[in-house]
């Protein structure tokens, strides 16, 4: 690699969640990022969603902190209104030309105060709200927009059209309006490029049979998101467009623009089933007595906790899932009710609804095609970026990576995983360059002590209408102003906006505030933002208290505004009483050991280890089996038909050859001590493997134990195949699993290709002469969901549908005359896998749906098996006597997950897989810092998903490893030495092993680096000798005394 | 006006009448049978009085110096003192404490030196004290734990009492001790006869017997001198079995240490004084963390010294009346008589 006098730089194209995540990961690892966004603000589609499944978190609420973080990050340069003009050169020396369209507002000067918006006389359709309502010609895209800078829509501006007006200019105090702004070209030199632009919704007008834009009460799912949203056109009231009345009967039509040969979009859009279920649940929270119908083919609830979510919609939220394809929609002219036509049980039915929502899928656009042409990357037939199963985030041009929906429709967590993965891959390209030096300057902290008179500033947020529509904010503000020590109390439209931060800072300086209370949404998402504001104002960030008057007040008391207002007063009063008693806290700094431990040597572990090593960090890879490869060793080929063997072989060779990777096969974790940045782990080799280690690899001295010191941990321990006990598996040789079938097919395949009729015995030992000649098979039945989605394992194993499709296709290819029947509940070939489902159907594979409560039954006769199944659609019982019964077995969590979970102090979900920190936005992190998860240990997934997640885990780990030190939590437990008797109860119960007894003084001592501030010790201490900083007994009592 | 103390006689059969006459003007408190002579409670009928009790569990002090007393109420929002308890608890009706043992009566005379003396006067105590007459009952059958004669008190001690009763055969020998005592029995004058020589002799004899049953264990005068040795070696040992509880001080009729704290609920508060005990470790703990009496050794010494050395110097009286409550109720049988003996025996 050439030397270059510059630090690491990456261009990220697209400022949606994928782009923002990639940018943040890179920036946190010391890379300077240019985040190019075509629209005036970052956030993408996720910013427009109301809630997210399956947790029903407010979408913008969880996204907004990331946007703000990106907006404030010293390593991220956000360039909005910008497009890529040209990309020259090769990695890591790309030369890029960016074109930035004029905003007509100076970004450096605009404070986002919104006065211009109030004064502007021109109304234009609000694109943020899907055109369902108006905004002004000069506007800030949405209240939480980053950057919070106004822009002028040139096409509608009176000044630009008629040369007069300039009202906005007159009222703009900072003189930010600049009508003379011209487009600008920016030249950048970057080492790598990440393509994070998203797809666009399918234009429902193209499906005119569904009546979109013809009948008023037919809306798209994206429009409906805005209708549901509190900041949307109806302020969160679900009203139908024609008469603004509350609908009672609502229907969703699924797969609009997806799985549709007619319009040429054959893929599945991957998220719409869940989105409809989510919307259904949310609707019932807005409206009572509402009936919801979802018309769709399969319910593709293939993710973590998705099936439970669907069940919730069905059982608790009055939602009916109708498995049909809607043929057309017309309207009742009297009341504008859309009427849905469909065929069920052979009958044509008509059903009228008050509101019809079209679940539109995603598609590529000409714009995206042009962009890929400029970048010189290959697209596939659907107009998506071409990737391969083994390189899911690499494009055809080296150094350019892709994440998010541009490489195929997908949900948020997959996009986030790919984003982190892409950041990691880009990092590998840049490993020869130095990090960008980040110097964040904070003003020196104003010393505050207990004796200083508290001067509290209170900022009460409207949260748009989220709070203000229920709580009388003005009353709260006035009441709070009368409390002792409160010297300032004011309302804010959006306390989280950038201008609000500016204002808080101003007030701190102007009034000498030494305590701040923000009454707003929830501290979970927004506390860090305000703490940062305090820090930048010179105040200790812990002199801050958050009053949750949205989640815990306005949202839950919508129907009692007066009581809600009183409660809000109390909540803010409590916060004031608490903040008065808060004291400055400081965070401990922990130095980071730059070595890593990757547990598990399967595809995920190996990929993650390479991801770290290739960026220059030493890795210890621990695998309990005697060789690397994990489950992938048993998967000979992919759905796309690619052989895994060569890929895996080269991967393992790379790992073994890498000087920074120490491979520890045949080894298990014995003990892990320590915390982020400073772990000490003991691994134990089983005796057999010692020899192996010594003789074959020669890398490790033969010894029974080895101690490793490292800074982070990646959990990639994989999962196991479910071993069926049903359907005579293990008793009858005709009953095999998909994995076994796959092995046979893989052995047959090369022989078959070598020449016709050569095959005699495929696998003499295992399958006897069962497939002595595959051509002799006449029928094969596959049963799906064996060991999945049942009482034992309630989740969907995600990959079995595509595995069945894959093997059915292979079988058909090898022996076209074999009849293949797949008995399924839902065919969950999500995303691009749908193409293979289609192909399977085309090649004659017969799919037969059965119901959960009427599982197929197998009767074993002397020489034959009889499979009986009640076909759901036609409601008929069918019988088969297959030569081979293939069970699509699920994936179950590893049995040693529990041990690891306890050792690492990281949680398992109810299904037994490791539980990530946040299902949507932190899919590879654990709540415990410094520990990451990828691969099957997290949840069942396919090869490319595993690779992406492994790369993501490496990338997330790098945000830690790239730093020399990090800060620990400030709200930690502390011991009052004069009270502690050293009984040791706290030592026993601390889940993080953060407390020890000092043998000299016989008192407990808290290790602040390990303490997570959970407070269990404080609660357990009889002597009240333990307190949690920030939650001291006095502080809590003061809070309680307020009410 | 009373020139000299009068000796009067009351037949037991007239006692009921006597009680009724007195209760017309006074509220009468005494050791009642109903609560097992736990403390002095209001007596409504003469037969409720427990005459044969040894001593109440709670001493008389709580009547004048209750365990919890509101000094005043206040409003934190308005930041003002609302009213004092002295004003709210008007003691319009006069009280009689009937059947007080001489040791308890004497203890009140000590408390008077603390609270009633004009240095400055404690209004809360004074108010109750002024409205109350003490009628004591001489002890004809002292308990084995009594040691009043060792500390300058005795079964027939008159100090602190307004009137003292002696139970003779079939009748009460009544001696008026103070002018208030005279006034107290005014309304029942007709039931009373002057004592005869016989009566007096019988009384003297009775008390002689009682006195002889009480062993004088130590001499409080000598003890005071002995205790001037602040760093005597026995202090290092005596306290060892002491648990540091507050039984001895709370039951003691002369212990009078108190704490002042504020109690607030919402904006309504009161400043209260409550009994405190020098036996508690936090008693002298400074806000700085310094504690001049850090261990039970110093605290035990303080209690003994306060009673037997400091008080004599300060108030001219040993602040112990020998009632024996601390002896009876100490959970580890820390017998103050033993302690005294040990101190006296030292060298």
């Amino acid at each position: 690699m050439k030397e270059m006098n510059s630090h690491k730089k990456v261009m990220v194209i697209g400022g949606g969640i994928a782009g923002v995540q990639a940018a943040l990961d890179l920036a946190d690892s010391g890379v300077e990022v240019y985040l190019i966004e075509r629209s005036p603000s970052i956030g993408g589609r996720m910013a427009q969603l109301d809630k997210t499944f399956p947790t029903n978190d407010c979408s913008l609420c969880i996204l907004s902190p990331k946007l703000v973080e990106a907006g404030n990050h010293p390593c991220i340069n956000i360039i909005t209104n910008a497009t890529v003009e040209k990309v020259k050169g090769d990695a890591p020396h790309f030369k890029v030309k960016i074109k930035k369209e004029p905003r007509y507002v100076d970004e450096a000067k605009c404070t986002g105060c919104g006065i211009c918006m109030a004064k502007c006389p021109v109304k234009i359709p609000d694109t943020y709200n899907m055109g369902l309502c108006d905004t002004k010609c000069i506007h800030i895209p949405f209240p939480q927009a980053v950057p919070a800078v106004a822009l002028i829509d040139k096409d509608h501006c009176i000044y630009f059209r008629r040369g007069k007006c300039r009202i906005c200019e007159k009222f703009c105090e900072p003189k930010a309006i600049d009508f003379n702004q011209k487009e600008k070209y920016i030249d950048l030199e970057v080492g790598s490029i990440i393509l994070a632009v998203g797809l666009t919704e399918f234009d429902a007008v193209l499906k005119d049979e569904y009546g979109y834009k013809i009948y008023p009460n037919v809306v798209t799912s994206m429009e409906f998101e805005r209708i549901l949203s509190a900041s949307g056109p109806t302020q969160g009231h679900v009203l139908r467009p024609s008469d603004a009345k509350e609908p009672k009967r609502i229907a969703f039509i699924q797969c609009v623009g997806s799985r549709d040969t007619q319009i040429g979009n054959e893929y599945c859009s991957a998220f719409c089933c869940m989105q409809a279920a989510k919307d259904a649940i949310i609707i019932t929270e807005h409206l009572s007595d509402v009936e919801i119908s979802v018309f769709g083919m399969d319910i593709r609830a293939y993710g973590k906790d998705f099936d439970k979510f669907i069940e919730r919609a069905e059982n608790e939220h009055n939602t009916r899932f109708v498995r049909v394809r809607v043929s057309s929609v017309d309207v009742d002219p009297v009341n504008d009710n859309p009427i849905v036509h469909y065929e069920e049980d052979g009958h044509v039915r008509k059903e009228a609804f008050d509101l019809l929502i079209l679940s539109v899928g995603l598609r590529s656009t000409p714009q995206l095609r042009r962009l890929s042409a400029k970048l010189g990357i290959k697209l596939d037939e659907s107009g998506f970026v071409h990737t391969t199963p083994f390189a899911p985030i690499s494009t055809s041009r080296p150094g350019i990576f892709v994440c998010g929906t541009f490489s195929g429709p997908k949900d948020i967590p997959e996009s986030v995983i790919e984003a982190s993965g892409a950041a990691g891959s880009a990092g590998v390209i840049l490993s020869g360059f130095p990090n960008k030096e980040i110097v964040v300057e904070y003003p020196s902290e104003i010393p505050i002590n207990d004796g200083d008179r508290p001067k509290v500033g209170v900022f009460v947020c409207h949260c748009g209408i989220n709070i203000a529509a229920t709580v009388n904010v003005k009353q709260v503000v006035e009441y709070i102003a009368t409390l002792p020590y409160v010297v300032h109390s004011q309302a804010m439209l959006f306390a989280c906006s950038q201008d609000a931060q500016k204002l808080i800072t101003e007030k701190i300086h102007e009034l000498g505030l030494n305590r701040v209370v923000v009454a707003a949404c929830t501290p979970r998402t927004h506390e860090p933002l305000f703490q940062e504001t305090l820090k930048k104002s010179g105040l200790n960030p812990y002199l801050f208290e958050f009053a949750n008057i949205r989640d815990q007040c306005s949202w839950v008391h919508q129907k009692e505004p007066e009581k809600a207002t009183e409660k809000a007063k109390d909540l803010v009063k409590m916060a004031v009483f608490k903040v008065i008693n808060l004291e400055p806290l400081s965070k401990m700094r922990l130095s980071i050991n730059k070595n890593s431990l990757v547990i598990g040597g399967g595809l995920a572990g190996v990929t993650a280890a390479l991801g770290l090593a290739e960026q220059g960090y030493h890795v210890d890879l621990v695998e309990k089996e005697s060789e690397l490869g994990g489950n992938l060793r048993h998967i000979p080929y992919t759905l796309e038909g690619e052989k895994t063997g060569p890929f895996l072989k080269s991967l393992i060779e790379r790992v073994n050859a890498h000087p920074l990777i120490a491979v520890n096969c045949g080894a298990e974790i014995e003990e892990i001590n320590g915390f982020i940045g400073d772990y000490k782990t003991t691994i134990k080799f089983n005796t057999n493997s010692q020899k192996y280690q010594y003789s074959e690899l020669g890398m490790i001295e033969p010894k029974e134990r080895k101690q490793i010191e490292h800074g982070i941990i990646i959990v990639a321990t994989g999962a196991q195949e479910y071993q069926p006990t049903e359907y005579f598996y293990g008793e009858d040789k005709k009953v095999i699993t998909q994995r076994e079938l796959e092995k046979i097919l893989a052995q047959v395949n090369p022989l078959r290709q070598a020449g016709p009729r050569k095959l005699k015995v495929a696998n003499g030992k295992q399958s006897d002469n069962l497939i002595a000649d595959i051509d002799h098979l006449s029928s094969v039945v596959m049963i799906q969901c064996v060991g999945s989605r049942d009482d034992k394992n309630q989740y969907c194993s995600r990959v079995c549908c595509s595995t069945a499709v894959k093997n059915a296709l292979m079988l058909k290819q090898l022996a076209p005359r074999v009849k293949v029947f797949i008995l399924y509940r839902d065919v969950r070939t999500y995303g691009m896998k749908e193409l293979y489902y289609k192909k399977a159907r085309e090649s004659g594979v017969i799919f037969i749906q059965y119901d959960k409560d009427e599982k197929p039954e197998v009767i074993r006769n002397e020489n034959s098996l009889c499979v009986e199944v009640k076909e759901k659609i036609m409601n008929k019982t069918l019988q088969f006597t297959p030569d081979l019964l293939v069970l699509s077995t699920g994936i179950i969590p590893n049995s040693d997950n529990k041990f690891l979970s306890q050792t690492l102090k990281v949680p398992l979900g109810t299904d037994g897989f490791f539980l990530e920190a946040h299902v949507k936005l932190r899919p590879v992190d654990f709540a415990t810092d410094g520990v990451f998860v990828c691969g099957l240990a997290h949840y069942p997934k396919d090869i490319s998903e595993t690779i992406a997640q492994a790369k993501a885990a490496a990338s997330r780990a790098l945000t830690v490893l790239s730093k020399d030190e990090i800060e620990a939590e400030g709200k930690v437990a502390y011991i009052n030495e004069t009270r502690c008797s050293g009984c040791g109860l706290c030592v026993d119960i601390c889940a993080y092993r953060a407390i020890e007894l000092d043998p000299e003084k016989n008192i407990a001592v808290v290790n602040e680096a390990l303490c997570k501030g959970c407070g269990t010790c404080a609660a357990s201490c009889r002597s009240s000798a333990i307190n949690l900083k920030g939650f001291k007994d006095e502080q809590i009592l003061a809070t309680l005394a307020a009410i | 006006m009373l020139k000299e103390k009068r000796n009067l006689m009351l037949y037991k059969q007239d006692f009921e009448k006597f009680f009724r006459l007195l209760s017309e003007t006074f509220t009468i408190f005494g050791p009642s049978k109903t609560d097992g002579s736990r403390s002095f409670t209001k007596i409504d009928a003469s037969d409720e009085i427990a005459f044969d009790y040894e001593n109440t569990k709670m001493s008389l002090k709580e009547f004048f110096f209750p365990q919890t007393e509101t000094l005043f109420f206040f409003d934190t929002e308005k930041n003002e003192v609302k009213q004092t308890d002295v004003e709210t608890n008007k003691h319009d009706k006069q009280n009689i404490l009937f059947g007080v043992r001489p040791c308890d009566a004497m203890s009140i005379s000590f408390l008077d030196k603390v609270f009633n003396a004009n240095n400055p006067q404690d209004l809360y105590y004074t108010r109750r004290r002024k409205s109350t007459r003490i009628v004591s009952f001489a002890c004809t059958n002292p308990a084995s734990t009594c040691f009043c004669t060792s500390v300058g008190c005795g079964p027939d001690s008159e100090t602190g009492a307004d009137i003292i009763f002696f139970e003779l055969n079939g009748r009460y020998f009544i001696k008026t001790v103070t002018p208030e005592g005279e006034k107290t029995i005014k309304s029942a004058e007709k039931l009373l006869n002057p004592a005869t020589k016989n009566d007096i002799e019988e009384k003297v004899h009775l008390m002689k017997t009682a006195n002889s049953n009480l062993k004088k264990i130590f001499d409080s005068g000598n003890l005071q001198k002995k205790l001037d040795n602040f760093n005597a070696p026995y202090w290092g040992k005596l306290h060892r079995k002491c648990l540091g509880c507050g039984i001895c001080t709370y039951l003691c009729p002369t212990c009078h240490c108190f704490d002042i704290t504020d109690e607030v609920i919402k904006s309504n508060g009161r400043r209260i004084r409550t009994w405190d005990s020098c036996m508690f470790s936090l008693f002298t703990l400074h806000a700085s963390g310094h504690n001049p009496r850090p261990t039970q050794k110093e605290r035990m010494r303080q209690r003994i010294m306060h009673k037997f050395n400091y008080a004599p110097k300060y108030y001219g009286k040993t602040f112990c009346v020998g009632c024996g409550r601390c002896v009876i109720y100490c959970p580890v049988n820390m017998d103050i008589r033993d302690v005294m003996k040990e101190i006296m025996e030292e060298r």
Partner: protein
Amino acid sequence: MNNPYVPMPVRISDIITENEARDIKTFKLIFENKEDEKKFSFLPGQFAELSILGFGECPIGIASSPTEDGFLLFTVKRAGVVTTRLHRAEIGETIGIRGPLGNTYPIQDMEGHNVLIIGGGFAFTTLRSTIKYILEKRNRGSFKDLTVIYGARNPGELIYKDELWQWEKQSGMKTYITVDKGDKNWNPLTLPSPRCPPPYPPPTSGGGQRRGYYVGEGLKEGGRYEGFVPTILKEVAPSPKDTIALICGPPIMIKFTLPILTNLGFVPESIFLSLEMRMKCGIGKCGRCNIGHKYVCKDGPVFAYAELQRLPNEY
């Protein structure tokens, strides 16, 4: 009737932060009721209970002199619940006061004599009252020479700084101000010398060698010094003849000052100290502040060293 437990309302008319650590503040108080002010007649050395409703009371020495009309000064170090609340008070707030309590410095005995005042740290409060009292024009003639030795840990911890600088210049008194450790702005008049060991060990936490202490002729004039109070006292070497010494300071300072005074020839009867104990009632009833048979609140806080020698060493 006068209820000694009920505080009189006083308004905080000024708050002065005295030290760098900002844990010592002086409160200027003005009586809300004129009658209360008249009743409140005191002499230097006395203290009062400051009261905040809902928080309680704390005994604080009166820092102002009776000759300062119309207000009272209290210098309060933040330590417990009440003092913390007091520190958080704002100007204009009304608090309560009970007093004056305790005895006074022996003002009458001091008349016609030289007065030596030795103070350390924030315990300088009632000594300030005394100094102001003596310096008052109509009183000044009653006393002979006035010598003040005052020390603190460092220049930032000196209290009443403005007055200190004034006293330095004032004729008719000698003022010696010393700090354990100076800073770059602190210009000691004397040169430190490493030969003289400190009179008591330097705090261990600081570690290392201290720069040293002055050795030489007695200090004839006042000025600024670096060194512990006892050292300076030794060098100042005031004559015991006709002199009454008043001491108030941290226990360790007192401990090492007394032998020096004794060596200089001061008799215990002419040395007066002001003591501290945990107090509640302040009027000799609640029974916790006794040292031997003396109540600090009533019989103190000022004790002649001679008397203190007769009392148990339990404070």
